[in-house]
């Protein structure tokens, strides 16, 4: 689980630190532009690096516009502390952008486990134990260090690779598998069907968990199948039951909310069957019927809690927010577009500092909860 994140000079996050509280699950609240989704962006950059896409100049990773208020005069810093099987992994990467360069450069990079260096880097020089070698300073060293499966570098990389980072857009989710799709679920879940097919190939027992989950929300749901539609492509279909008969609906023809329920079923099944699953879901309330929302978030939270997983959620929706408590709901404050995000505060801290005893729902509607003074 993520214990701590530190960010400097990235968008609105300046000298920003987030330490996970007693409850490792978290809800992030805040007005638009307060920095919530920037946290997700950072994790997605780290995930891409871990998956071997280690150049930093891609337009979906870093551009000059991602540098914060200090501009390119200061490096962007990402640090992340992750606890895996009672060992503390600390990874940091410092990315500068010298004036004469056309793309970002890695100034410093390091991975420690329980305080012991796995590798360190200073510009192009990488040190692994006593060995020192040089590497192009535009690419991260993390994914290219040779490591056995039980090596800490590999354990850490695998953890980052398997993070579920989502801001799903149902209209973009394709209904068929595609051999060209990445096996990792992409940010907007457009490759969900390919990803589902891939995880069911690896873990077939998840099928039953997914079907059972969907049935709880859609009581007439029966089962789902992958139907061959070509040499390399399979279409996902859902079978519903009525009066003893079946009828099938292609996944693509489902409503947006139903697509997301199906996606949440897959996330749920993974979190239920594996330990230490991390999921960051940006606005899960979008598209799902309001009558199902609180059951959905409570079920997800229960599942992550019981299986040592970690669920982080960004939401503006009161049904989702109500599933969390004062001590695991974090408020992002920012005074304006020329100001950095202020240190995070839980609702419990907000109540204490403001002597606030009123209704959270009212404070959210009036915006009083975002009043940092």
């Amino acid at each position, binding site marked *: 689980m993520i214990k701590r994140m530190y960010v400097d000079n990235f968008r609105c996050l300046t000298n920003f630190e987030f330490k996970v509280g007693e409850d490792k699950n978290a809800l992030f609240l805040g007005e638009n532009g307060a920095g919530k989704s920037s946290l997700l962006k950072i994790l997605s950059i780290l995930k891409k690096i871990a998956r071997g896409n280690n150049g930093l100049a891609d337009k979906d990773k870093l551009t000059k516009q991602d540098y914060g208020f200090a501009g390119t005069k200061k490096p962007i810093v990402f640090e992340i502390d992750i606890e895996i099987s009672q060992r503390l992994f600390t990874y940091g990467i410092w990315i500068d952008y010298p004036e004469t360069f056309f793309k970002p450069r890695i100034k410093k990079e390091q991975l420690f486990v329980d305080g012991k260096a796995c590798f360190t880097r200073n510009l192009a020089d990488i040190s692994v134990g006593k060995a020192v070698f040089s590497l192009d300073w535009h690419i991260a060293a993390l994914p290219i260090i040779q490591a056995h499966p039980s090596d800490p570098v590999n354990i850490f990389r695998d953890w980052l690779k398997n993070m579920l980072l989502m801001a799903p857009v149902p209209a973009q989710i394709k209904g068929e598998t595609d051999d060209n799709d990445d096996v990792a679920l992409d940010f907007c879940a457009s490759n969900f069907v390919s990803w589902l097919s891939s995880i069911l190939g690896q873990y077939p027992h998840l099928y039953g968990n997914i079907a059972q989950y969907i049935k*709880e*929300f859609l*009581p*007439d749901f029966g089962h789902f199948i992958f139907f061959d539609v070509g040499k390399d492509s399979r279409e996902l279909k859902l079978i519903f039951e009525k009066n003893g008969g079946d009828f099938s609906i292609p996944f693509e023809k489902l409503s947006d909310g139903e697509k997301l329920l199906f996606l949440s079923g897959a996330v749920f099944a993974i979190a239920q069957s594996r330990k230490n699953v991390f999921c960051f879901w940006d606005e899960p309330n979008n598209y799902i019927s309001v*009558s*199902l929302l*609180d*059951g*959905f978030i*409570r*079920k997800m*939270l*229960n*599942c992550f*809690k*019981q299986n040592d997983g970690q669920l982080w959620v960004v939401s503006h929706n*009161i*049904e989702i927010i*109500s*599933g*969390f*408590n*004062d*001590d695991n709901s974090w408020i992002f404050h920012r005074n304006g577009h020329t100001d950095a995000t202020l240190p995070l505060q839980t609702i*419990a801290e907000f109540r204490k500092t403001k002597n606030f005893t009123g*209704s*959270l*729902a009212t404070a959210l509607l009036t915006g009083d909860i975002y009043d940092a003074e």
Partner: protein
Amino acid sequence: MPNRHKWHIVVVPEDDATRQLGNGLSNAFPAIATRIKFLREAGGWTDAVATIKDLELDKYPNRRVLLIIDLDQDDTRLKFIRSQPEISKFNNRIFILGSFIAAEYAPPENFPVTEPDKPRIVDRNRVRAALPPHCMPAIADFATGPEILESGRSHENI
């Protein structure tokens, strides 16, 4: 068949604190998470009771209701609420969880508290001892009262 026609329970919390008590309760029963429907905070215990009418219990026989209210150290309130017509009519389907601490058992001396600013860690036997019998929550088909109280550790009155 939509889920509202199957067994389910509607939780009516009085305020933010009792909502969080309910969150602790739902965490203890993951298998029925989708059968628990939380309504918005009612705003006061009288408003929570008034909400019962909107829930059309005669139309939905599989619906149960859990009121979570703050008894404010008033040991007559539970009896009063139970006597309200809309509640007594469905006595076997409406459950009341009331947070209550009698003045003579009030914290801090008598209560096991780890740190004053942290959520209080409750010794369930002492909570059991602190609650008068008629204030024990009438939800024996879920769990014992102290376990539920213990789950809602964010609640200030515990």
